[in-house]
């Protein structure tokens, strides 16, 4: 993202693996943070710290200056679970079975791949866009 500046946008679809302890909770936490306008801040913090148990998530909410009472209430009541489940259904419809899975202008890239793999596709897509006059 940093390399390409405003040439690239990133969208997230939740696909928490159902047998991991905290995957679904973390996805809901990101949506609870999003409800307070801090999705990406929470996204970055969770990826940096890696601890995703309930107490850690609540601590992150405090660090980010969120309304912690509201965040905790929404997490405990699973308020954002339907939103997350919509994404899971979408992933199933598309027959996605591994995370992360990326689509770069519709071109699929599966798994943790080196930056060069992304770079190759992004550069091709940018060249195409340039040729098309965008």
């Amino acid at each position, binding site marked *: 993202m940093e390399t390409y500046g*405003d040439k690239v946008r990133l*969208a997230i679809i*939740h696909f928490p693996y159902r047998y991991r302890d905290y*995957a679904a909770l973390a996805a809901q936490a990101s949506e609870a943070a999003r409800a307070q306008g801090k999705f990406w801040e929470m996204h970055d913090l969770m990826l940096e710290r890696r601890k995703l148990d309930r107490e850690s998530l609540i601590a992150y909410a405090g660090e980010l200056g969120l309304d912690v009472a509201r965040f905790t209430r929404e997490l405990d009541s699973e308020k954002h679970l339907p939103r997350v489940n919509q994404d899971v259904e979408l*992933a199933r419809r598309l027959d996605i079975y591994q*995370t992360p899975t990326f*689509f770069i202008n519709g071109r699929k890239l599966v798994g943790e791949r080196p930056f060069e793999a992304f770079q190759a596709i992004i550069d091709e897509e940018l060249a195409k866009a340039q040729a098309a006059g965008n």
Partner: protein
Amino acid sequence: MPVKKSFLTLMLVLWAAAALAVDIPLDRAPVRGPADAPVTIIEFMDFQ
């Protein structure tokens, strides 16, 4: 009937395009970066 034939061809092309394209709705997704960016990366992710 050339008109009818071209219509059928058009329908076939549209159908093929729809079948090939990965249509992932982003209206509900958190998005970072400008809406008119030439490249869109969609990540199906698991935080854990």
